[in-house]
C-alpha cells in the first residue's frame, strides 16, 4: 500500500498555497536493474485536489516527474480550517487519498 502524503495548505490574504509531497518511486521505464533488465515504468498519472467537493487543481504526470513528487499551486476561496482532499492514481491503478487542513 502506498505511504501517506505530506500536505501543507496555508491561507494568506485570501490565497491558499497548497504544497504536497507524494511518496512514489516514479520509475521512468528507462532504467536498467543490476542484471541489465529494463525496470518497467511505474508512475503517478493523475492527481486531483478538491476543496469542498470542488476540483481546484488537477495534474497529469508523465514518467519524468521526480521520485517522491512535489506539487504546489495557489487558489482563492478557502478559509483557515477548511479541508483539502488530495487523490492520486498511478499506472498500476494503485491510489492514495489524504486530507490536509488549511492553516
Amino acid at each position, binding site marked *: 500500500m502506498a*505511504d*501517506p*502524503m*505530506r500536505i501543507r495548505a496555508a491561507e494568506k490574504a485570501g490565497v491558499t498555497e497548497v*504544497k504536497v*509531497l507524494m*511518496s512514489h*518511486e516514479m*520509475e521512468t521505464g528507462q*532504467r536498467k536493474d543490476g542484471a541489465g533488465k529494463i*525496470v518497467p515504468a511505474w508512475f503517478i498519472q493523475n492527481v486531483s485536489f478538491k476543496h469542498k467537493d470542488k476540483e481546484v487543481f488537477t495534474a497529469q504526470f508523465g514518467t519524468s516527474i*521526480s*521520485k*517522491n513528487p*512535489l506539487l*504546489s499551486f495557489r487558489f482563492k476561496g478557502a478559509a483557515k480550517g477548511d479541508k483539502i482532499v488530495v487523490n492520486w492514481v498511478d499506472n498500476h491503478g494503485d491510489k492514495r487519498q489524504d486530507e490536509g487542513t488549511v492553516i
Partner: protein
Amino acid sequence: MKKTKKLILMASVLAAVCAANPALAQQGKDDPLTKYRDMLAGDNPAELSEMKGEALWKTARGPNKVSLEKCDLGVGAGVVAGAYVKLPRYFEDTKMVQDLESRLVTCMVMLQGMTPAEARKNPFSSPGKPSDMEALASYITSQSRGLKMATPLSHPKEKEAYAIGKQIFYYRAGPYDFSCATCHGAPDKRIRLQYLPDLTNPKDAREAYATWPAYRVSQGEVRTMQHRLNDCFRQQRLHEHLYTSDAITALTMFLARNAEGATYNAPALKR
C-alpha cells in the same frame, strides 16, 4: 594608545578569519548552483520518511510483537527527543560504544526478538525496496532538530573510539592511496561542483555532521551516516565495511565529537 588600537585591529582581523565560514562561501553569488539549492530548500521528501519512521517506531513488530517505544537510545527508555545529538555513546548494557543504527539493531534484537541478521537485513534502500532503518533514522534524528550536538567523551571506551576514528580518518590505503583527509582535509575544496566540508576545521565539521542523514536527490532516498561513510569507503576504493561495524562507529564518534556545539538540522536535503 597606538599599540592598543593595533591590538584591537589584529584581534578583529583574527575574529574575521575565524568567522569566515566556508559553508557561506558555498552559497555566495558566484556559486552557479545557489539558485538550484535555494529552490529545493523547504520541501524535503525526507519528511515522508520521517512520517513513515514514526509509524514504524510505534508499530508492534518482530517475534515478540512489540514496538520500539521502550528502546533506550541513551537518554532513557523510549526517549526519542534529543537522543541523536548525544550519540554515539557508551552503553552499559552492551558494553559498547554505539551509534544510532547500531543501537537500533540492539533494540530490535533485545526488545522485538529479531535475530541480528534480520535487524541488519536492509540497511540501505534501493528502488522499490525501502529500508526500515532509513525511515527510523529519519524519524529519530528529526526529533533532535534545533538542539546542540553534545556527544559525550568521558567513558574510556568513548575516548578510545574517538582516537581510533581519528586514525582511520587519516589512514591512506587502497589503489587510489586515499584517506578521508584526501577530500576532507583542506578548506574550500570541491569535487566537480560539490563543496567538500573540511572536516579538520570545526566550522565545517559542525555544519557537515549536523546535516546528516539527508535526502539525496541523486538517489531519491534518505541516507544515513552509515551509508555516507560506506559510500566514502567505496569511493576510496576500499572494500566494504560491515553495517554498524566498530570502524564506522569509531569514525562516527570522531566526526560527531568534532561537531560539538553545532545546531543539529537534519534530515537535510542534499545533491
